[in-house]
């Protein structure tokens, strides 16, 4: 139980852990929900939730305003990379009074704790949430061992 949590933590990265501690310290009820990364850096990180269901890894990511065509998901061995961009087109004839939703391009790489079956990965995008289901490869699944 303890090792599994540690694997997931390593996967998401120590740097992110540090950043989330900072977010907790600076949390204020009225802060717009993503003021992650600094204003100068256009490549921002992607809020992600990971659940290990035993047979697969389920990954949820917040990508509002991003269309399927603008998302790129690549898997290479145990390295999963999710990237994409969102354009903020100013409507014709309008000028901006307030801009909080930054035009963003994001990219995040994960080192998965086990091999996954790349051919049966399912990805769906609904209401701005990306859901990735990564089935573990046979060798990585939990198995029952019977004692004779």
């Amino acid at each position, binding site marked *: 139980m303890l090792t599994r949590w540690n694997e997931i933590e390593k996967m998401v990265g120590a740097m992110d852990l540090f950043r989330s501690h900072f977010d*907790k310290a600076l949390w204020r*009820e009225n802060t717009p929900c993503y003021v992650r990364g600094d204003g100068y850096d256009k490549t921002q990180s992607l809020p992600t939730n990971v659940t290990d269901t035993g047979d697969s890894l389920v990954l*949820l990511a917040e990508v509002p305003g*991003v269309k399927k065509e603008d998302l790129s998901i690549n898997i290479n061995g145990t390295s999963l990379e999710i990237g994409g961009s969102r354009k903020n087109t100013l409507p014709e004839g309008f000028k901006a009074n307030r801009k*909080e939703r930054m035009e963003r391009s994001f990219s995040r790489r994960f080192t998965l704790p086990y091999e996954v079956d790349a051919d049966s990965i399912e990805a769906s995008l609904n*209401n701005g949430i990306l859901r990735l289901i990564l089935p573990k490869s046979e060798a990585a699944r939990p198995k029952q061992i019977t004692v004779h």
Partner: protein
Amino acid sequence: MNKTKDMPTPAPQGKVTESQKTRLPRLTPAVDIYESDNAFQLLADLPGVVRENISINVEKGKLSLSATRSGVSSKEANWQEFADVEYERIFSVPQTIEVDRIEAQFSDGVLNLHLPKSAAAQPRKISIATA
């Protein structure tokens, strides 16, 4: 051993009432506001929300937007960076908005509100009549 890493919840002020304990954490959605001669356009990021859970109310010069997101938090999650929240934000709207003609659209987790200005509020050129 606590496996989940939860989103921080804002600390309740003073005594914690029953409703505060069960209430979802509140989050302010990021918005863009654009203006043209005849309308305002408001775009709000509400990822993970379903259309039925959004409520938009205009009353006494205030536009209040609220939406609930559920289904992203899970007790079994190993790593959680975003949670089930209630998005809420209130804006003051000028008197010049024609409330009856406000239109809203929601796609890809982004809410798009079109707020037309009333005809009286639009800029008009005033020409001087020749005497």
